[in-house]
C-alpha cells in the first residue's frame, strides 16, 4: 500500500505543474498569436476603438442688405431624437405629456406619432428646435430619468430670417440639410456654405482628443457673406404697396421690381404671395410653385409695355421718327389676319408719339413693318429678349421668342410681337431692356449681390456690367421724351405721375395664354395688368415694373398698376430726397 500511495502522490505532484505548464504554454502561444502574429490587426482594432473623426461644420455666411442690415444668419438649434426601445406604454405617455408642450403638439398626438413609428426604435421627434425649446428639453432631461434615458439633442445650425417673409424670393431659404434653395441662397450656395473641416484623433472617455495620440485636423472654412444691392427700406415700401394694391384690385398675385437703370442693380423685388423662409414647409395650397421667383422664373406676354422696345428699335433703325405720321384705320390686315386696336377704334392720322401714348397697335405695327422683320428681331435680341439676363438668382428663365426660320414662327409674329403678343419675357428681362431706354442705350446685366466677402475681405465684387449698346443715346432720349409725353397727356399715364417729377411710363394689359395656344377670355380677372416706367426722365433714379395678375377691379394696367406706381414713386422720391424737376401746381 505505501508503494501505491507513493505512486498516487507522485502523480499528483506532477499533475499540478504539468497543468500549470500547459496553461502557461497556451497563454504563451495565445500571447504570441495576439501580439506577434495578429499584431497589426489588433493594433488597428485598438486604434479604431479610440479613434474618432468628427466633422467641423463651418458657419454659413450671412446675408445683408445694401445698408448692412442682417437679412439671414445662423442661429443655434437642435434636432430632437428619441429611443423608444424598452419603454413601456406608461413611459411613452409620460414622455408625450412632457415633450408635447415643448414641441407645440398635443400629448395625445405626440403619443400617437411615437407609437405609429415601426421598424425602428430611434425616431426624430423634431427638427431644428430653437434654443429656448432645446433648453426646456435639457431641463426635462435633468429632472426626469425617463426623459434622460430616451431623449437626446443633436446640435445643428438653423437659418434665421429675422424679417420673416420679407424679400423671400430674393433670399430663398436653406433646407434641413443646410443647402440653399431658390434665390441667392441657392445661387451662391457654394460660397455661403463654406468648407467643412474634421478632427481625427484618439480620444478619452469624454471624446476629448488625447494630446499624445495620433491626430490629424483640418479647420473648417466659414462661408462667405453676401451684401445685396437690395435696400430694405425700399423693399419694405414696395411690399407694403404691393400688398395694399392686391387688396384694392383683387389681383391674385403681383410683383414690383425696382432697379437702378444705370447699373442694373436690383433695389427691391416685392412679390405676393410670398413664403416665410423660416417656415418654408408652410406653403399651404400654393404648393411648391410658391418658391419660384416670379421676377426671373415666370414668363408672360408683356403686352403694350413691349411697345417701348418696338418704337425704340424703329426709331434707332431709321424707320420712323416720333413725328412720323400715318393713317390709323383701327385695323390692319396681316397675311389675312385682321389685327385691331384693343379699343376697336380708328385714330386717323397720328404721329408715332401719339400712337405710343394711345397704345395704338396699328401705329406700332406700322413702325415694326417699316423697320422690317430682320432688323426688328435683331433689335429685339439685342435688347436681351429670348435670352437669360444672367442675373444672380436661381431659376432664371429665358422667355419665349420665335425667330424667322423657327418652326413655330409665322410672318404674322412681326405684327403681334410688336405690341407684345406671341412673345414672352420674364419681368427682369423687360426691366433690363427698358433700362436701356432709360440710361441712354446700354443693356446692363442685372444683379442682386454687390459683394461676396469673407472675414470682411471682399472675394468677389459684382460691378455694373454693360452687355452691349442697343440703341443710340439720341434714340433713347427721343423715346424717353415720348413716354414722358404719354404720362403727361393720358389719363392712365397721369395716375403714375408724381407732382413735381417728370415721369416716363408705359402701361400694359396682356391677355393670358391658355391651353392649346389660345388666350383666356380677357374680362375681369383674365388679364395681366402692368406698368413699367422710370423717373425723373432726364436722369432716372429708378426704373420700376408693377405687374398684377388677374385684377378684378379693372382689366387695365393703367387703372390698376399705374396708381401703385405713382404712390410708390412718391415714397421713393421722398426717401432718396430727389429734388423735383418740374414745378408743382
Amino acid at each position, binding site marked *: 500500500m505505501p508503494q501505491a500511495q507513493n505512486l498516487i502522490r507522485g502523480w499528483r505532484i506532477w499533475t499540478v505543474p504539468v497543468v500549470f505548464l500547459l496553461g502557461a504554454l497556451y497563454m504563451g502561444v495565445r500571447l504570441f498569436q495576439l501580439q506577434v502574429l495578429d499584431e497589426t490587426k489588433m493594433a488597428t482594432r485598438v486604434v479604431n476603438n479610440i479613434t474618432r473623426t468628427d466633422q467641423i461644420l463651418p458657419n454659413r455666411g450671412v446675408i445683408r442688405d445694401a445698408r448692412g442690415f442682417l437679412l439671414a*444668419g445662423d442661429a*443655434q438649434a437642435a434636432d430632437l431624437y428619441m429611443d423608444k426601445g424598452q419603454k413601456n406604454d406608461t413611459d411613452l405617455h409620460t414622455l408625450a405629456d412632457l415633450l408635447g408642450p415643448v414641441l407645440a403638439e398635443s400629448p395625445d398626438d405626440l403619443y400617437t406619432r411615437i407609437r405609429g413609428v415601426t421598424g425602428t426604435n430611434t425616431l426624430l421627434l423634431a427638427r431644428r428646435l430653437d434654443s429656448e425649446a432645446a433648453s426646456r428639453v435639457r431641463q426635462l432631461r435633468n429632472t426626469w430619468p425617463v426623459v434622460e434615458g430616451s431623449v437626446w439633442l443633436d446640435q445643428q445650425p438653423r437659418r434665421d430670417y429675422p424679417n*420673416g417673409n420679407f424679400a423671400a424670393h430674393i433670399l430663398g431659404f436653406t433646407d434641413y440639410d443646410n443647402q440653399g434653395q431658390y434665390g441667392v441662397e441657392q445661387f451662391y450656395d457654394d460660397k455661403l456654405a463654406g468648407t467643412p473641416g474634421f478632427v481625427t484623433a484618439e480620444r478619452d472617455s469624454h471624446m476629448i*482628443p488625447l494630446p499624445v495620440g495620433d491626430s490629424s485636423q483640418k479647420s473648417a472654412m466659414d462661408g462667405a457673406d453676401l451684401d445685396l444691392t437690395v435696400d430694405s427700406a425700399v423693399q419694405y415700401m414696395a411690399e407694403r404697396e404691393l400688398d395694399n394694391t392686391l387688396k384694392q384690385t383683387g389681383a391674385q398675385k403681383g410683383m414690383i421690381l425696382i432697379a437702378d437703370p444705370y447699373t442694373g442693380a436690383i433695389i427691391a423685388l416685392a412679390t405676393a404671395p410670398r413664403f416665410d423662409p423660416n417656415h418654408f414647409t408652410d406653403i399651404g395650397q400654393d404648393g411648391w410653385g410658391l418658391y419660384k421667383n416670379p421676377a426671373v422664373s415666370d414668363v408672360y406676354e408683356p403686352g403694350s409695355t413691349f411697345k417701348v422696345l418696338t418704337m425704340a428699335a424703329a426709331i434707332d433703325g431709321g424707320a420712323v421718327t416720333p413725328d412720323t405720321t400715318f393713317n390709323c384705320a383701327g385695323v390692319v390686315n396681316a397675311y389675312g389676319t385682321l389685327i385691331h386696336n384693343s379699343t376697336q377704334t380708328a385714330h386717323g392720322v397720328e404721329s408715332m408719339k401719339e400712337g405710343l401714348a394711345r397704345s395704338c397697335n396699328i401705329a406700332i405695327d406700322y413702325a415694326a413693318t417699316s423697320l422690317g422683320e430682320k432688323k426688328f428681331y435683331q433689335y429685339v435680341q439685342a435688347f436681351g429678349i429670348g435670352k437669360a439676363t444672367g442675373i444672380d438668382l436661381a431659376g432664371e428663365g429665358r422667355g419665349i421668342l420665335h425667330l424667322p426660320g423657327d418652326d413655330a414662327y409665322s410672318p404674322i409674329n412681326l405684327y403681334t410681337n410688336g405690341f407684345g403678343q406671341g412673345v414672352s419675357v420674364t419681368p427682369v428681362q423687360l426691366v433690363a431692356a427698358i433700362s436701356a431706354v432709360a440710361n441712354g442705350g446700354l443693356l446692363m446685366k442685372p444683379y442682386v449681390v454687390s459683394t461676396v466677402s469673407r472675414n470682411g475681405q471682399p472675394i468677389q465684387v459684382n460691378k455694373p456690367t454693360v452687355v452691349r449698346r442697343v440703341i443710340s443715346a439720341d434714340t433713347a432720349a427721343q423715346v424717353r421724351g415720348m413716354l414722358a409725353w404719354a404720362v403727361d397727356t393720358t389719363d392712365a399715364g397721369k395716375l403714375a405721375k408724381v407732382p413735381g417729377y417728370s415721369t416716363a411710363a408705359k402701361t400694359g394689359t396682356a391677355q393670358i395664354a391658355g391651353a392649346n395656344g389660345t388666350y383666356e377670355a380677357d374680362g375681369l380677372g383674365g388679364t395681366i395688368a402692368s406698368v413699367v416706367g422710370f423717373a425723373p426722365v432726364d436722369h432716372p433714379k429708378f426704373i420700376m415694373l408693377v405687374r398684377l395678375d388677374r385684377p378684378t377691379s379693372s382689366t387695365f394696367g393703367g387703372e390698376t398698376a399705374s396708381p401703385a406706381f405713382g404712390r410708390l414713386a412718391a415714397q421713393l422720391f421722398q426717401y432718396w430726397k430727389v429734388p423735383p424737376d418740374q414745378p408743382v401746381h
Partner: protein
Amino acid sequence: MALRIAVPNYPLDPPAAADVEAAPSAGERRARLESYLALDPAFRFLIALALVTAISLLYLGQASSVTELNYAVQSQSALHTKLIHEQQDLQLQIAHAQALPQIARTAGTRLGMVPVGKAFRYLSVPAEVQVASPVDTQAGLAAGSR
C-alpha cells in the same frame, strides 16, 4: 682628498637604476581611475534607479503638463465656439429688433402711429430760408436744441 659633507637622506651618489621607481604609464593611470569609480553594485543599481525615476518623473510631468494644456485648449476652443454662437444669436436679436415689419408693427400698435398717407400739404418756403447754407441750418438746429 676632497672634503665630503654628509647631508642626511641626500644620496651622494646617483641611485642605482634598480632602485629608481618607474613612472606609471598611461594605461596604469587609467586602471587606477577605474578603481576610484568602482562602486558597489547595489549602489550602482540605486543610482540607475534614481536616474530612471527622475527621467520618468520628468516625462510624466511634461506629459501631464501637455495633457493639462490640451484640455485647456479644448476648453478655450469650446468657449470660443460658444462665444461665436452667442455673437451670432445677438446679431440675430438685433436684426429681429431692427426688422422693418417689426418696427412698423410696434409703431402702429404700441405707439399708436399711423401712415401719413395723403394727410399732408406742401408749405411755401420763404426765399431767404431756401438760400440758407447747410452750416447755418445746422447752427440753427444746434442753437434750438439748447
